[in-house]
């Protein structure tokens, strides 16, 4: 039997200079400058960006295949092409079965329509026929647990109800091929489990699923095979355990940031920071809100050192300082250090909201600054079960998380 999904030499180019709609004036301006042989504002000069390069692989009927890779590896572009949202620049993909894609739940939901009407609308947008939806209707409503509110406009739903209803429709699609993006990252933990269960069920029924995720736990739980992408290229394709292990190993190796090439550093240079490695103590690569972290710094000097002070500062994207790990303030570094060595700094759970953090490093000898590297590296904090509810505030609101309890005090105030 021929594979149900077959990709051959799929490549996708984005023209960086042309991303974003333009105005007619811009266009005339650019054409003018192109004719006259120079770039108007440098935008033309920028190279094309290949999000996918000659990607070829196949998926067999009934397989559940995971797609993993770091941000920018081309996972979403791949799903967009297979979902027919955009077309490839080169190559060909063949789908030998009815596809449905789930890049988001609740696509096309209209706030003024009732839950009932939205089920039909959303189902139709996802490719279901009216009679199919009607046949599944009661099951969908029961899955979403919104029976009493089914004739209420969805704008009056709580966000939890909204997401449950949206996922319920999607979960009851019966395509031969299901393309799923990270949609499980929504909803509370219990509901996420239910969705994962439903997806496992779907796979057992013999449908083919292509599943993009950052969540290694769900990839390991659901997929037999994994495709690993890196910078638009196929880096691995095989049994889940093996490829995930390779992936985690490669990302950890990559995480040792070489600082020797950095010329934008300050300090007298009497000692240098050579490299730094950022990791999560508990989960290996992924740093999440309740991770304890470990920073490993390698340094070098031409003679043994005395009174050395190491500083690791964590910043957010606004350059607001979040944490300062100072070896002088805490102690633990002996007074005399060899000329070359490695120091580590281990932390308690970091309690940060999901988002990117930047690291500055500094090395002092006494009061003299020997080395200082700004933005030595960065790391992303992923959301986790910090509050055990599947919810947490976004980075736009706050930086830090703190365990706390709410309770009702009986009686009048």
């Amino acid at each position, binding site marked *: 039997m021929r594979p149900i999904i077959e990709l051959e030499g799929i490549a996708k180019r984005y023209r960086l200079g042309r991303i974003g709609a333009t105005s007619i004036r811009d266009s005339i301006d650019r054409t003018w400058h192109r004719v006259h042989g120079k770039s108007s504002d440098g935008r033309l000069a920028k190279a094309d960006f290949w999000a996918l390069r000659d990607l070829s692989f196949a998926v067999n009927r009934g397989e559940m295949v995971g797609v993993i890779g770091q941000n920018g590896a081309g996972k979403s572009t791949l799903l967009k092409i297979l*979902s*027919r*949202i955009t*077309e490839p620049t080169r190559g060909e*993909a063949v789908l030998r079965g009815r596809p449905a*894609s789930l890049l988001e739940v609740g696509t096309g939901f209209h706030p003024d329509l009732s839950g009932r009407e939205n089920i039909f609308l959303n189902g139709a947008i996802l490719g279901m026929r009216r009679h199919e939806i009607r046949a599944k209707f009661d099951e969908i409503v029961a899955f979403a647990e919104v029976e009493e509110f089914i004739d209420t406009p969805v704008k009056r739903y709580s966000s939890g109800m909204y997401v449950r209803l949206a996922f319920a429709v999607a979960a009851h699609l019966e395509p031969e091929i299901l393309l799923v993006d990270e949609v499980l990252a929504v909803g509370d933990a219990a509901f996420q489990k239910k969705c994962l269960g439903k997806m496992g069920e779907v796979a057992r029924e013999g449908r083919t699923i292509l599943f993009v995720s950052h969540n290694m736990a769900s990839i390991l739980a659901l997929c037999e095979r994994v495709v690993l992408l890196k910078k638009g290229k196929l880096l691995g394709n095989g049994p889940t355990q093996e490829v995930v292990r390779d992936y985690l190993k490669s990302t950890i190796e990559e995480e040792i940031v070489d600082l020797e090439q950095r010329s934008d550093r300050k300090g007298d240079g009497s000692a240098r920071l050579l490299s730094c490695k950022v990791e999560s103590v508990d989960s290996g690569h992924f740093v999440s809100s309740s991770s304890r972290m470990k920073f490993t710094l390698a340094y070098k000097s031409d003679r043994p050192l005395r009174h050395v002070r190491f500083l690791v500062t964590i910043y957010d994207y606004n350059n607001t300082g979040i944490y300062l790990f100072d070896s002088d303030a805490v102690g633990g570094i002996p007074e005399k250090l060899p000329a070359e060595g490695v120091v580590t700094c281990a932390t308690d759970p970091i309690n940060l909201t999901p988002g990117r953090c930047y690291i500055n490093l500094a090395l002092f000898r006494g009061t003299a600054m020997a080395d200082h590297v700004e933005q030595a590296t960065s790391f992303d904090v992923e959301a986790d079960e910090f509050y055990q509810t599947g919810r947490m505030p976004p980075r736009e609101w706050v930086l830090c998380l703190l365990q706390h309890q709410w309770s009702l005090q009986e009686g009048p105030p």
Partner: protein
Amino acid sequence: MHDVMTTGQESDFEIRIRPNQGWLRIDLRALWEFRDLLALLVRRDLVARYQQTALGPAWAIVQPLAMTLVFTLVFGKLAGISTDRLPPVLFYLCGLLVWNYHAQTFQLTGGTFTSNVELFGKVYFPRLIVPFAVALSNLIAFVIEAAIFAIFWCYYKFFTAAGAQFGTDARLLLAPLVLLQVAAVSVGAGLIVASCTAKYRDLRHALPLIVQVWLYLTPVIYPLSKVPARWQWAMALNPLAPPVEMMRFLLLGRGEVNAGQYFCSSALAAFLFLAGVMIFQRTERTFIDTV
């Protein structure tokens, strides 16, 4: 971008996804498969338009009446522009019946890409469904306006002296054909504008201007016969002018459209529609990359 074709026993069909090919790739089968979506989008459009408004669908009544009142006062009484010996109210209402359908459909389909970025970025379905749904949902407003027109028509016919000046007969049955031609123009022009705005966002600001100018170039507030003979050929180039006049002829029995003009406008309507669909298809395939 993708063909659907029937193959052996393995599966019903096969979808081939490959780059950029040809201008005429209209997937009629997919359009047919998504016909339920068309019906649901029509319903969504109606709810979205009328749900949170105080008067609801009554807006479809208020708008043409207010316009007719203004036209009667300004163009009829003040400027003294001829209404072809017809009661001014009927004359303007009839023109607006066609014009409003066109203006609404044109403007809404013209925004197909800009107002559906979210949807188009997340899921595939034949994009043409969206403008077609707009053309259909606007029929509701058209029917409401037609009902008002019918009421005024009866009043003038049976209760005023002007009743002898106008009338209709079996030719009324041709009115849906005229409307179909208008819809082809509105959707065709709308799709072209939609495709252009996908690349050039500033065209969005030009849309209201186009609509306004187009109104004055169309015999809505004046009869086609008042256009000087040496400019009559130009009116044939406005694919809306002959249908508006024709509608007046069908419903009120007055209006001068020559066969040449009408044929020319029908051909233009067909051309606009096909060109619109083709340009739209080409744009839709990579539109989302430019967002």
